[in-house]
């Protein structure tokens, strides 16, 4: 897919009003501002430079209407320019591949926990005998191994993924946790995601790791989660949460990894508990510190007992059993 990037340089005081204008035309109302900054004395410190111009950008899909949108924006900026001087409106074409793959050149081999090594599928790696190697191409799915929530889960899986455990990875994204569980010996592993793009990426990563016989990847969810849309859509399907048509979840998993978000964990608390066999282990993450209490309360009400709590930055992972 091709996009049209529209950008304009403005002085500091015009940032807000020109952003408002760009947001009216840009895709998803999104605007990017790249303010000039001055590095501080300490590494990560910085301050803004109010005397240098700020570049503002917005994006529109390059379709037959794009030129019309560009012209309307140019006209709006012309009127604006009568009050306050602006730079000219610049336009350039941008291919999705340009940015969708740009991060790949910086994605490198990474060690997480004691034994897990994440290897981008396009790189070579010679493992030591103890290494648990996960070959991965996360594409546009969540789960590169870089995010604190993924790292917390991977460390916990090193402890809890044992041979013979029936495992569920709910919201699998790139498939990283399911693959880690399988490589650590657990199985059979079911890796599901309600985002079909993620389910496809996960299936491909399972294939790259040659564990198709242990891990089944596909589109799906659990209980109330079957009524949810993609988590990006903000559709949590609450109106269905008490729907009697949802098939009852039966206890079948010894180990569940659910790296979701707090709100979804709360909605799924009962289903997660019901899917777990007595004595089974639930690893949950994606929980931001301010929402910890919501998840803890919901899990308790669902009859789960907390065993562990781990923190990294603002993110938490919890371990429960029933």
């Amino acid at each position, binding site marked *: 897919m091709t996009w049209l990037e529209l950008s304009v340089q403005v002085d500091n005081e015009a940032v807000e009003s020109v952003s408002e204008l760009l947001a009216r035309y840009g895709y998803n109302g999104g605007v990017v501002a790249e303010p000039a900054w001055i590095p501080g004395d300490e590494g990560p410190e910085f301050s803004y430079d109010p005397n240098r111009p700020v570049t503002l950008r917005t994006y529109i899909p390059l379709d037959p209407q794009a030129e019309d949108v560009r012209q309307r924006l140019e006209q709006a900026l012309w009127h604006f320019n009568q009050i306050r001087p602006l730079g000219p409106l610049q336009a350039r074409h941008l291919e999705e591949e340009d940015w969708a793959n740009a991060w790949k050149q910086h994605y490198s081999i990474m060690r997480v926990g004691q034994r897990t090594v994440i290897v981008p599928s396009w790189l070579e790696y010679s493992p030591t005998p103890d290494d648990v190697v996960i070959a991965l191409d996360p594409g546009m799915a969540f789960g590169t191994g870089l995010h604190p929530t993924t790292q917390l889960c991977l460390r916990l899986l090193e402890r809890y993924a044992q041979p013979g455990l029936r495992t569920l990875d709910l919201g699998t994204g790139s498939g990283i946790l399911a693959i880690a569980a399988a490589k650590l010996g657990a199985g059979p592993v079911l890796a599901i995601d309600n985002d079909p793009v993620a389910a496809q990426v996960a299936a491909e990563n399972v294939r790259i790791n040659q564990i198709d016989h242990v891990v089944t990847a596909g589109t799906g969810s659990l209980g109330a989660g079957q009524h949810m849309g993609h988590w990006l*859509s903000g559709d949590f399907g609450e109106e269905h949460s008490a729907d009697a048509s949802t098939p009852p979840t039966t206890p079948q998993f010894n180990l569940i990894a659910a790296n979701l978000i707090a709100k979804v964990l709360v909605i799924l608390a009962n289903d997660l508990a019901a899917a777990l066999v007595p004595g089974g282990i639930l690893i949950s993450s994606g929980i931001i510190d301010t929402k910890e209490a919501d998840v803890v309360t919901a899990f308790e009400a669902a009859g789960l007992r907390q065993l562990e709590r781990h923190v990294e930055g603002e993110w938490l992972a919890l371990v429960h059993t029933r």
Partner: protein
Amino acid sequence: MAKKLVAVVKLQLPAGKATPAPPVGPALGQYGINIMGFVKEYNEKTSSQAGSIVPVEITIYSDRSFQVKLLTPPAADLLRKAAGAPKGSGTPNRTTAGQITRAQLRQIAQQKLPDMNALDVEGAEKIIAGTARSMGIKIVD
């Protein structure tokens, strides 16, 4: 050794509804940070403010890690709400979109002060009055 800062990017996005599509993808992809990592973090932090635009400041470090800081709503948004105007004027040099009082201006300046390059609330007021003018919103006593 402290990690090095490589970029500071501000994004205006609808709360809880960021996607990897533009503007997020192109704005962040070029710095080598994982786009879905950001999207998940932004949506989780803003989900309670759905329906508003929540700007965010992303600081990106040399090791590809990043920090996400939510900012106050855009002044343009606050001005529009205060004026009861659905949008700013497309021709601010000719037509007005609405009006606000000095007291409303001060209130917005106070709310925005933490994120502004202004020394005090008077300085912030001046900047926001400029924004109002360029949106075609009049300030009345």
